């Protein structure tokens, strides 16, 4: 049986009153393949950032794109879309 990830309190109408509670659900643990971004090849076009379905790619203070491994599920869309092949998928070692 599937279990809920968030322990829902049985509130009237199943309302979750705590905002942003989904951040507690770190989906990075689901990853089988790990994207690795080579900053030396990256042209900072933002394509990976745009395509990431999880919003797990962020831009840091220097304008570099970085992957948030807490939430990246390893789908590989970023690697597939990168026009300069700066992202490679590696087998996740845990």
């Amino acid at each position, binding site marked *: *049986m*599937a*279990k*809920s990830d*968030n322990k*829902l309190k*049985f509130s*009237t*109408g*199943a*309302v*979750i*009153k*705590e*905002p*942003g*509670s989904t951040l507690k659900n770190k989906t990075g643990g689901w990853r089988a393949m790990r994207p690795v971004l080579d900053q030396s090849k990256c042209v900072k076009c933002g394509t990976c950032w745009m395509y990431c379905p999880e919003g797990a790619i962020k831009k840091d203070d220097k304008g570099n794109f970085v992957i948030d491994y807490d939430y990246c599920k390893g789908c590989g869309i970023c690697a597939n879309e990168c026009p300069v092949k700066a992202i490679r998928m590696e087998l996740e070692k845990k």
Partner: protein
Amino acid sequence: MPEIVVEASRAIALGVKLCKPKVIPMYPITPQTHIVEALAEMINNGELEAEMIHVESEHSACSALLGAQAAGVRTFSATSSQGLALMYEILPIVSGNRMPSVMAIANRALSAPINIWNDHSDAVSARDQGWIQLWVESTQEAVDTVIQLYKICEDHSVLLPGMLCLDGFTLSHVYERAVVPEQEQVDEFLPEYKPYVKLDPEEPITMGPIAFPDSFMEFKKMQQEAMLNAVEKIKEVNEEYAEQFGRSYGNGLIELYQMEDAEHALLGMGTLVGTARVVVDELRKEGHKVGLIKLRSLRPFPKEDLIKATENLQGLAVIDRHISLGYEGPLFSDVRSALFESDLRIINFIAGLGGRDITQKHLRKALLSLKEGKEGGWLL
């Protein structure tokens, strides 16, 4: 306000106006249209401060009803027949989200064949979707009930949506006398709407999350508990209304007529009850000990009250204005199930489908058939 002669649809709109809904999503369908037409006029004339949303379908009307209620305001809509059917996808979402929206259903047959006239197939088919359903007999009862519904539905022990069910044309298009309450009276009876929870960017919350198999049943159980709470709430609100406005309808759930010493009785919902009153009086003059039970609340279903009300009866004829094709009248199924442990003989008549007039002759025949030990059937 003094008594006026008013079309039932307009009277309902006047009742709704007194409850001050802020959003009224609507899509026109006969015979409901006069209700929202009247509301549109009131908004246009500045008599009612509300937003009317002209949506592109009943599916959207119900969705907007849900959305507006979730944003924290009192809402109203109205529909009929296939219009309600098109709302079906959203009906259990409104109730599952525990949004106390109120909607009028001017009951009309479901097609096909196309038919614009009254029967109960639309709302009775939707009875399992977690909406309170109160069925009314007269213009006065319609006005009073729409005001009561807001109070019942919004109570924090209930928090469920409600349908005001009235017979299309047979009641919706009738002009008759009715007292429309004063605004101050209604303000006193029905406090300003305070949502138990609302969507607000300043205080973000999540509505409508997924519930996994390990929690879904608990939420359904909570809805069932709310429905059971509504049984008491409907009675309470009926009594409070009587105190403030001087009118009540039985105990809120059922109403008994000439039942004190009755041996045989009719049970039904809506306008047929009015005609049945006259039939009961006529048969009483002829020496028959007959009575009448008006079912006002189909959901929640007043099982305990029905058991009490029928204790001394010998026979009961249930008149259904709908048939669960492949079985029997659904009201009959409910009533018989509630009275399973009694020895009462219960028979079923299917009547008044697609606007077929339910006449005094029909109801007389039903009562006499019951008394003579005959079976039920179709009152054609």
